[in-house]
């Protein structure tokens, strides 16, 4: 149990980068972008092929992110210059990317088992620190039978995600970032203040998909393979993370919302892992679990709010009735 939850946290933090990308398009730009399913694999494919051809792992990973950025920009161009509706622009790009990804990879699945990925490289550095032994010793001492094989990924990802979060928070408060947010909020207004909304949308969707592709590149190296089908339904997982996070932690400020989205991504993974441990559920049920989770996260806050309102009104009615009784009417 502990090991699987640990694994969920590990992959959850990597998927958090993808969730931040989805937050960027869906929430900040109010642009329901489905490119994500394709750009996630593009990131994985470019990174994998790069590494297999001797590009250093970190550079290959960043190239993967760049490829995602370009794909996102094209979706943005389809929408702004081609006047194609946002959903359709994303779907078209997603479909096109499937073929493009297959071309990049050459085969539907690439193994990264014997490749020096970022995680392999990190591990060889990490071992010298001795942190694994210390932490696992601690866990063993308090009675855990099985301990994680490495803490390197969790620690490294916390730092990477924290840096990305800080950059996103900052970006959204810059002059450009404010204009970007206004583009998602009120296009007419920000245009009347001399902002080119087309360019902002193109860059915004580009950045969003850059993050998604970065996440894809890291996940491929984490799981040891790049697969053409890895992105199917991913957008819903991203949305689930955003919605769960927002429902649990609120959206008061930008910094809070991005933290909520990251937490949402991790919580989503944990819930899925725990749910899959139930005997009657199989791995194939994951998508169903995801859909149910999103529905719960969407409906529950509304339901609770409704209950509260009802209770409040009832209380008022009762108070009035009591008062009338006391007055003897």
């Amino acid at each position: 149990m502990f090991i699987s939850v640990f694994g969920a946290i590990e992959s959850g933090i990597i998927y958090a980068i993808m969730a931040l990308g989805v937050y960027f398009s869906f929430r900040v730009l109010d642009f329901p972008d489905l490119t994500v399913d394709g750009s996630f694999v593009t990131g994985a494919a470019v990174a994998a092929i790069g590494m297999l051809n001797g590009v250093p792992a970190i550079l290959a990973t960043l190239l993967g992110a760049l490829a995602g950025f370009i794909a996102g920009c094209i979706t943005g161009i389809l929408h702004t210059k081609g006047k194609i509706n946002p959903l359709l622009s994303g779907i078209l790009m997603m479909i096109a990317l499937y073929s493009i990804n297959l071309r990049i990879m050459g085969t539907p699945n690439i193994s990264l088992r014997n490749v020096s990925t970022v995680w392999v490289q990190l591990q060889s550095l990490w071992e010298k620190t001795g942190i694994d032994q210390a932490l696992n010793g601690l866990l063993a001492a308090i009675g855990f039978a099985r301990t994680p094989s490495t803490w390197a990924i969790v620690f490294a990802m916390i730092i990477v995600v924290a840096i990305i979060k800080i950059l996103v928070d900052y970006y959204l408060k810059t002059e450009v970032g404010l204009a970007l947010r206004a583009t998602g909020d009120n296009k007419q207004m920000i245009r009347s203040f001399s902002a080119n909304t087309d360019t902002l949308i193109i860059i915004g969707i580009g950045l969003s998909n850059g993050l998604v592709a970065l996440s894809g590149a890291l996940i491929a190296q984490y799981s040891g393979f790049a697969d053409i089908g890895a992105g199917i339904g991913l957008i819903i997982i991203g949305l689930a993370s955003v919605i769960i996070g927002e429902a649990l932690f609120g959206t008061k400020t930008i910094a809070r919302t991005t933290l909520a989205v990251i937490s949402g991504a991790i919580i989503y993974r944990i819930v899925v892992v725990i749910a899959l441990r139930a005997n009657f559920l199989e791995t194939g049920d994951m998508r169903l679990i995801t859909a149910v989770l999103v529905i719960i996260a969407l409906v529950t806050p509304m339901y609770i709010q409704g209950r509260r309102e009802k209770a409040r009104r009832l209380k008022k009615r009762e108070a009035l009735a009591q008062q009338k009784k006391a007055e003897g009417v």
Partner: protein
Amino acid sequence: MLQLLDISVTFNEGTLDEKKALNNINLELAEGEFVTVIGGNGAGKSTLMNVISGVLTPDIGDVYINKRQVTFLPEYKRAAYIGRVFQDPMAGTAPSMTIEENLAMAYARNKKRKLKLGVTKKRKELFKEYLATLNLGLEDRLNAKVGLLSGGERQALSLLMATFTEPDILLLDEHTAALDPSRAELVTKLTEEIVRKFELTTLMVTHNMQQALDLGDRLFMMDAGEIIFDVEGTEKQHLTINDLLEEFRKRRGVQFEDDRSVLG
């Protein structure tokens, strides 16, 4: 400051819905001139505003701002010189962003937007000073989301945002029409103060004839896509609503049909 030469706009040309919205408009506004515009529904007032702001490109004719031809300059580029307040109080601000963020976006109007913080300490002080001139207490609510403000407050904020960077031209399209009378009066008063303070070249569309007479240095009456009456100076000062109706009858041979425009 602003010059329109032979501007014509026709919608849906060649179809049953063909509509000549502007018909050979010529006008010239001097720097700092404040013009009120009246006319019935469909007279072409909003179309005129849209041609000036670049939302619409005229079929024929040219637009000059500050002697520079801007006929084909896209809306967002022209917006560096033009402040606008719309009829809908929701239109001029970003509701899910705070007051200070909205002001910061307006502040960046005539500058290149950079990757620097939009709201800085120094700017906050500046924004507070400007907000204080509205006398609505908004200077103490810099971090409030604009969506929470009342329509009147939002419109006052929109007006401030459109003007405090001192644009070359200010366009107001019935910007008090959606407000209740007391709020409308407040925003009108603010408009007059701000236009005078910054000496803005202003075009203000209104359906309130009295307002059109009380405010500004010059008045246009529009009908069927034409400016049929253009009056300024002392002649305008002595004008009454009855004179306006008389002018309309004289030029068009009919009564001013729109009751709404006679009200007020």
